[in-house]
């Protein structure tokens, strides 16, 4: 799936949807968009450069076919899965046709931005595509225009514009010193002038900007509010993909292919990662709002990814990528379940819910599997990626951080067990007698995502050399 296909097709789709004289209905738009996601997902399994010649010359003008390496292909797959999940949840949750239509267009635009980000080879274009994704997610959060959503979106906007300013200034300094902005020139320059304090200041600013976008602990102010206030399908999409791509993927892409690793930057990554793991887990324990608790848990899991990546070795990068993939899958699964709860019980405060396992069997089982894999219980995929992260840290003899990672998974287990007890097990609250299982679309998505976690967990050896070796050969 070349660059042009991945980005241009959604762009043309959006244009097609909004043709002036013929306005397509929401349902069909949703169907086409989900079709595109499936195509993109399966494109992962196609060989890299199988593009049919017909399309080739049509878009040859824009043919900027970069040889996309493994990491981007893996990210394509994850973004397709999460987008598909959010579109289906949208189909189940939203009923007004106009809103559905707007929603699908914005999702497609954001998907186009994301695919662009995965293929781009130039730090300025990285900025541009990050802005595209950010802009779309501002609107997506505020699509329902209720009080909380507006507030959350505004906070996200202010915080990420601060981040953008930082990133831009660092790009400017890098451009000043390197003379050009594509990865190759910048990496040559970095080899040569790495030591210069101005250049390191620029790199640090870039890292801080990405931390703000990615929601690493001290810079995460906006994340819990926006996950909480966003409408259900948006929170699935946001938690699943946006923070990870804009924040963590760009960090990995830059440090993997542009700047190498030196101990100073590595120590920053490790320190902030462990802070966010521990404090994120602690914050999640006493939450009584289901989505906010999930937000804090995703902050701590992002910390795990950065920790894995901070180990510095290629094995560490592979572990980080694998955990990123796993986390997107089971976090969006958890948010899909929260969406189901919201639709059926429309109460998001955990203390009011209780004993829903009897009424909503599928949702409760899938959420059990999801949080087991988050906590890292053996047969499931989360365990393997956490194991790889800890191994990477151990081999890079950063033993202290490995120990922190292991202990924190106990905290993860605590807050998920608390959630499970409050929401699903225990006595059925009086108001929920006639609660039915979530609609088919949502249950189908949760089953699909749960199947992915279990399959990836069980077939780990194949997954290891198939999926991850292609991304990062270690």
């Amino acid at each position: 799936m070349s660059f042009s296909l991945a980005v241009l097709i959604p762009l043309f789709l959006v244009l097609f949807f909004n043709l002036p004289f013929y306005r397509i209905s929401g349902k069909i738009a949703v169907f086409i968009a989900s079709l595109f996601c499936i195509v993109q997902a399966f494109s992962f399994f196609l060989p890299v450069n199988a593009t049919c010649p017909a399309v080739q010359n049509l878009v040859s003008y824009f043919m900027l076919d970069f040889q996309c390496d493994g990491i981007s292909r893996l990210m394509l797959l994850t973004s397709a899965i999460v987008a598909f999940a959010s579109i289906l949840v949208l189909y189940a949750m939203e009923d007004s046709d106009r809103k559905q239509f707007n929603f699908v267009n914005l999702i497609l635009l954001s998907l186009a931005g994301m695919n662009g980000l995965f293929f781009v080879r130039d730090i300025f274009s990285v900025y541009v595509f990050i802005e595209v994704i950010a802009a779309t997610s501002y609107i997506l959060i505020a699509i329902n225009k209720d009080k909380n959503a507006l507030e959350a979106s505004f906070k996200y906007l202010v915080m990420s514009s601060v981040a953008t300013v930082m990133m831009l200034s660092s790009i400017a300094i890098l451009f000043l010193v390197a003379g050009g902005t594509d990865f190759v020139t910048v990496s040559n320059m970095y080899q040569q002038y790495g030591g210069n304090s101005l250049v390191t200041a620029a790199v640090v600013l870039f890292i801080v900007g990405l931390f703000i976008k990615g929601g690493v602990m001290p810079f995460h102010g906006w994340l819990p509010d926006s996950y909480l206030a966003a409408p259900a399908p948006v929170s699935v999409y946001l938690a699943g993909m946006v923070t990870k791509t804009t924040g963590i993927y760009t960090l990995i892409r830059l440090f993997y292919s542009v700047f190498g690793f030196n101990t100073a930057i590595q120590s920053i990554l490790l320190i902030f990662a462990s802070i966010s793991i521990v404090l994120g887990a602690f914050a999640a324990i006493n939450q009584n709002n289901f989505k906010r608790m999930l937000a804090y848990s995703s902050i701590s899991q992002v910390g795990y990814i950065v920790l894995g990546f901070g180990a510095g070795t290629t094995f560490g990068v592979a572990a980080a990528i694998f955990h990123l993939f796993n986390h997107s899958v089971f976090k969006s699964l958890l948010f899909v379940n929260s969406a189901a709860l919201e639709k059926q019980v429309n109460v998001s405060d955990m203390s009011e819910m209780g004993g829903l396992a009897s009424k909503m069997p599928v949702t409760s089982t899938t959420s059990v599997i999801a949080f087991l894999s988050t906590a890292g219980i053996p047969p499931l995929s989360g365990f393997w990626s956490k194991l790889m992260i800890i191994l990477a840290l151990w081999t890079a003899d950063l033993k202290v951080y490995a120990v922190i990672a292991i202990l924190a998974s106990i905290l993860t287990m605590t807050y998920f067990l608390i959630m499970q007890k409050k929401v699903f097990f225990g006595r059925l609250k009086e108001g929920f007698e006639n609660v039915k299982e979530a609609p088919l679309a949502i249950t189908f998505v949760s089953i699909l995502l749960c199947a992915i976690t279990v399959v990836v967990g069980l077939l780990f050896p194949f997954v290891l050399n198939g999926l991850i070796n292609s991304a990062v050969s270690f």
Partner: protein
Amino acid sequence: MDSIYIHIILLALIIISSIFAVSYARVIRGAIILGIVSMLVSISLFLLSCPLAGIFELSVCSGLITVIFISVISLTLPPDEKQRKVNSVSMMKKMVLLVLLVLVCGFSLYMLDSKNITFVPLMQNVQESIDTRDNIWNLRHVDLIGQALILLTGLFAVVVLFKKDKNKDKK
């Protein structure tokens, strides 16, 4: 060509006017001063031999953005007297801000010199000057697509945010 003083003056002007833009109680005055700041920036752009960027800055930033600001302010009802008094930041505090900023400038200047940052030898071999226009079109295809995407999102933003909900939903 032109001596260094013009730059220094312009920079000083920009910084001072931006401080004023921030600290005015009545936002309308702030918006106007912001327009002035963007004009000053476009002048300095001209000086730094980026004419096209200057034009863009002048027309879009000082023009369009100020217009948007004014429209937003007029759309929302102006804060009444009592509220203005409440959030009017006294001039004195602004002065404190100014002094603070000057201090920060001095400190950072000093820091830059003292740490004798080994200045990166600026690229001497000046490439043959490609004209910006074909530069954008030939070299920056990718960014153009990015721009297209962002413009579409802007379009949808306006559609979603500014359109009145016909059917006032129950919330």
